[in-house]
């Protein structure tokens, strides 16, 4: 009774909040699209030049646009005092955290994954790599949101935590980036991509069962430091 109530109560609230500020949802996506459209303009419109870069560009843009949306993940709740109520009454806090991250992923990671095949075509991403890369993003963006959430929770009390947040989480994003790009290389070489996708899936599962606890702990500490 209590735990589904905690999860869905938080999900409804965060969902309503996300829908009331569509700009905050659109910004990381617009950033993603813009960065990717700059590559054919800035590097070369030749598909022979773009094709080998395409998967890497998609992943780096996805990583940076995820980073862009992270800073505000818990900041507003803290400033309003809602975080105190959440820590006081929301025990166990991980379920509210999971709901918040799910809403965040539905608003950033999911649309970004869905846009990837289209933007991949713009970057001359080889046909055979299109769906493997999309599958990689579908598994990888939840990891980015979960790990990024830990960084956002740790820096929530800092006035200008943005740079520190990037320094904290970007190194953690690197394995995801390497695995994600290697999916495309394997697909182009005609090799099976399932093993690497399985690694990404394992990473997502591991992040799903560990990161919410770290986030809950970091948020409790943030409330204690006032």
């Amino acid at each position, binding site marked *: 009774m209590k735990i589904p109530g905690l999860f869905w109560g938080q999900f409804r609230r965060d969902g309503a909040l996300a829908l*009331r500020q569509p700009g905050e949802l659109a910004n990381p996506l617009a950033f993603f699209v813009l960065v990717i459209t700059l590559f054919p303009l800035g590097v070369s419109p030749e598909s022979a030049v773009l094709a080998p870069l395409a998967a890497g560009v998609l992943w780096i843009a996805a990583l940076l646009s995820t980073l862009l949306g992270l800073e505000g993940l818990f900041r507003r709740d803290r400033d309003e005092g809602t975080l105190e109520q959440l820590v006081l009454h929301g025990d166990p806090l991980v379920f509210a955290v999971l709901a918040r991250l799910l809403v965040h992923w539905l608003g950033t990671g999911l649309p970004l994954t869905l846009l990837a095949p289209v933007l991949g075509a713009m970057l001359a991403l080889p046909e055979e790599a299109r769906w493997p890369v999309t599958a990689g993003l579908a598994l990888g963006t939840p990891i980015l949101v979960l790990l990024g959430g830990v960084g956002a929770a740790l820096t929530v009390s800092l006035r200008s935590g943005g740079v520190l947040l990037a320094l904290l989480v970007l190194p953690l994003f690197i394995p995801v980036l390497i695995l994600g790009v290697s999916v495309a290389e394997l697909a182009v070489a005609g090799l099976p991509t399932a093993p690497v996708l399985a690694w990404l899936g394992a990473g997502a599962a591991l992040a799903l069962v560990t990161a919410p606890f770290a986030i809950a702990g970091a948020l409790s500490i943030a409330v*204690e430091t006032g």
Partner: protein
Amino acid sequence: MDTPLLTVRQLRCERDERVLFADLSFAVARGTALQLRGPNGAGKTTLLRILAGFHPDYEGEVSRAPGPLAYLGHRPALSGLLTAEENLAHYLSLTAPGTALSAITDALERVGLAGYEDVPCQALSAGQQRRVSLARLPLLGITAPLWLLDEPFTALDDRGIALVTTLLEEHQAAGGGAIFTTHQPLAPRPGLETLWLGPEGAP
């Protein structure tokens, strides 16, 4: 019934190398409200945060009767983009999941905001936001035996102040207790006690 809702023994807290209070002992029995008074910076908010469990940096003993706690900080803990009803529905999902949403309408009516259910909180005045925040108290009622209120009278008009006083009296009559801070002088009444913080003690 005889065990106090809250007992504090030998509490000592330092902040920024300044002793806020030392050797502080008091208890809140059922049916009493304790007003914390003292100059700005005397440690009233810190004491409330210690009692709510938000400030682990203290020495001494704090023991609380089981049961949830209502804590209203000096920030109203409302999301400006959400309506009064949505904010309180989220609070209910944390504190008492499964409660009928009509309880929210009743609570808003109680704090004088009937008809404001669907107004985003950022469109409300500071006093109205404070009232939405205070609507949590009738919502929880005696299910949260101990109320900790930080400056509950801020931004309220005379009728708002009378409302908080009534809410406190009803809570005390139901066997609850409360600790609140305010600089407002309150008329003495049975069950209302005062605790002075600060170096000089009571003036």
